């Protein structure tokens, strides 16, 4: 409900006022809104009681904790902070990762090359064995052929 009870302008709705009450108590609203809220509160009992409740809660929370921090420990910490290692820049980090990647790739290539060579040598050996067998097989063939010719 909007009430036109003031010459300067209309007052705010109840819902809007209730949402802003907390900020109003903390002095965090603009002057215009502050005036509107004050004008509304004068007429609206509900919002008045809401404001009183909030104030009561604030009073309940307003307690000072008396204990003080021991300063000796702080001095130790401050001493430690003087010997902090300097943080690495992003470029340095990038360079380190790039160099390590390169090293890894080169090393991997070297290892794979060495193993492939071994495999190739083994393969060659087996191929040569096969050829020898085949040759001997053909030799036998030719031998049989020769024998058959002799029989005839």
């Amino acid at each position, binding site marked *: 409900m909007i009430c036109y009870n003031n010459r300067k302008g209309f007052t705010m709705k109840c819902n809007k006022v209730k*949402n802003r009450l907390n900020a109003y108590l903390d002095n*965090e609203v603009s002057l215009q809104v502050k005036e509107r809220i004050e004008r509304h509160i004068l007429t609206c009992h509900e919002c008045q009681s809401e404001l009183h*409740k909030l104030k009561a*809660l*604030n009073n309940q929370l307003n307690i000072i*904790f008396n204990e003080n921090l021991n300063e000796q420990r702080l001095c130790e*910490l*401050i001493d430690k902070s003087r010997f*902090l290692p300097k943080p*690495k820049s992003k470029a340095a980090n990038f360079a380190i990762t790039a160099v390590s990647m390169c090293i890894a790739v080169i090393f991997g290539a070297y290892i794979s090359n060495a193993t492939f060579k071994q495999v190739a040598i083994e393969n060659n050996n087996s191929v040569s064995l096969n050829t020898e067998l085949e040759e001997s097989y053909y030799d036998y063939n030719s031998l049989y052929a020769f024998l058959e010719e002799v029989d005839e």
Partner: protein
Amino acid sequence: MNNPFDWELFIRDKSKKLFHYVLKLVYSAEDAEDIVQNSLIALLKNTHKLDQSHYERWLYRVAYNKSMNLLKRNKSILKKTDDIVLNYNTFTLDEYVNEDDIKRNMIRKCFTKLKEKHALALELQFYQKKSYKEIADIMGITSSAVDSLLVRAKKEMKNIMQEKEMKNIMQEKE
């Protein structure tokens, strides 16, 4: 060239505020001192991972988590202290009852039950008297979000307080 970060000023400035924040979560001042020291050391170790603008927020979060861990560890001890406080309430002589102490314990219990961001917002606004803009800078949100966050936090605080009062009344009846 960037100016080197002034650690001495930072530690001197923030540690007292952090200490008073932790005091609302933990029961003894010595525990609070330990937590403040440990969280500062954690910050010093992890500076290379963080941006300078996030230091304070990070510090508050670490302190909150550490104090919650401590409370979990000391749950059995906490129950005993609760009993002592309740016994204080039933005393008839005014000499033994310090009303402020009871209020402080009440606030501690409420703060431990609040969510982390609600507790932090209440602490910054209420006890450190910071404006909404400063809170928004520390927490990394907008100032209108801080407004609604505070409203929600106070609602929760109110509910928790009412529950506690109801419990106290029930216990007195028994």
